[in-house]
């Protein structure tokens, strides 16, 4: 059974609890062990890099250093955490002086960073390590007819530079097809949701959310699937405000890809953290209900 060091990140503790739950449930079903990193600290998000780059690297380095002790691969479900870890590792590998400097600081916590641990995003684990075929084999209730807008967001891929993949990835759609859902043509799948602007620049954030929702609605998506807590909170919790702002009537549920995968594998919705959202993804759950009349599954 494959093991990963699991770095949930602040959001998954509460505001994105359902992501946390579904991640653990699904991976377990797929024979993967996620061991939560002991005493991890915040990755610094974007805000930290506004204030002090060096400090931001140190925060990330602490987590990586602790991860090195317990494993070889650390997996982050949050895109921001992932990006910070991935690129901190990259920068440190290019800049030994910086590494030394940071290691001095880490001494204070009896840690040292050597860069041995590989950084992965949870969705990469599904797309690459597990793979579509393996996933298919575990699907019990294919989400037939469920139209999903697979939303990558920014930081899973950018600022990586291998263009073909960064500009037009397919792996998210492939995962969705694997569980029987129908990925819709969602041209904004890589456009930013404005998560980091929500507080600092409200109007900008709203218009970005609006564009995404508009595009999803235009593509007649039943549900938007995300792989990042910020995107989820942004797109879901602020639909009300956006509607007020733009006089629209969006009501598109936004769920985590792990929740959908979970459903398809017959994991009870409760265990996947359903019920915590503002806009119930009823259609998604009904998809299985109608097709397989799985009331008991739903009402468990």
């Amino acid at each position, binding site marked *: 059974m494959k093991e990963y060091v699991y770095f949930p990140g602040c959001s998954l503790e509460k505001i994105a609890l359902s992501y946390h739950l579904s991640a653990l449930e699904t991976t377990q079903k797929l024979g993967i062990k996620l061991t939560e990193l002991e005493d991890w600290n915040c990755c610094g998000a974007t805000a*930290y890099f506004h204030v*002090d780059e060096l400090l931001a690297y140190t925060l990330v380095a602490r987590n990586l250093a602790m991860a090195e002790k317990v494993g070889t691969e650390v997996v982050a479900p949050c895109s921001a955490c992932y990006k910070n870890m991935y690129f901190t590792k990259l920068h440190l590998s290019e800049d030994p002086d910086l590494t030394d400097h940071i290691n001095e600081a880490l001494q204070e*916590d009896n840690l040292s960073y050597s860069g041995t641990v590989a950084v992965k995003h949870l969705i990469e684990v599904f797309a690459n390590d597990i793979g579509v075929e393996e996933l298919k084999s575990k699907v019990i209730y294919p989400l037939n007819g469920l139209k999903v807008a697979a939303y990558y967001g*920014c930081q899973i891929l950018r600022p990586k530079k291998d263009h073909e993949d960064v500009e037009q990835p397919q792996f998210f759609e492939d995962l969705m097809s694997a569980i029987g859902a129908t990925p819709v043509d969602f041209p904004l799948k890589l*456009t930013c949701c404005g998560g980091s602007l929500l507080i600092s620049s409200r109007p900008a954030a709203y218009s970005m959310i609006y564009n995404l929702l508009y595009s999803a609605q235009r593509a007649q998506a039943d549900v938007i699937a995300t792989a990042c807590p910020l995107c989820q909170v942004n797109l879901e919790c602020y639909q*009300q405000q956006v509607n007020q702002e733009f006089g629209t009537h969006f009501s598109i549920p936004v769920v985590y890809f792990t929740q959908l995968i979970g459903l398809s594998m017959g994991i009870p919705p409760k265990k996947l953290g359903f019920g915590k959202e*503002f806009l119930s993804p009823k259609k998604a759950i009904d998809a299985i209900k109608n097709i397989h009349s799985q009331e008991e599954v739903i009402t468990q």
Partner: protein
Amino acid sequence: MATKPTFSNEVANLLHAAEGNPLETCIQCGTCSGSCPVVKYMDQTPRRIIAMINAGLKDDVLKTNTFWYCASCYQCTVRCPSGIDIAEAMYALKRYTMWKNQYKEGLIGPTFSETFVKTIVRSGRSYEPLLAPTYIFSYGIREFFSEALNATNLMLKGRIPILPPRIKRLENFRRMIAHIIPIGGIE
């Protein structure tokens, strides 16, 4: 040669993992601004900011909101035909203004970032409710309610922790931070 570095070089020096001054290689093609999802809210497009930096128009640059509106989606960085890490440059400008305390009036970004950082320095993890006030005062009353509404919803859904989370080895953690910068800087 102890000549004062140009503004352009100052900013370039704040870019991580960049050799020389990439900003000066900008051909002003506009790919960055064309790709930017926030550009219409910016006083100046990112391309212009780079031009202004290279022209040494320091004050005009610092006056803009452009870099505070950067959503760090990195679309510009990925596409820039001159290989300039524009998003990183925006970060650099944020840091620059934070240190020099000369950012545009009425921006929430800086205050927010500071609170955020403080929270983390205190507890090692972020805690939404603490972040809330920073902008509630900055926005109108209507915002306040809608935000409050959201907050309560989140509470009800059990999506906001009642107590701020803390990491265990907080003392070490703080000393570690102290080792990097004088806490006075933020605390």
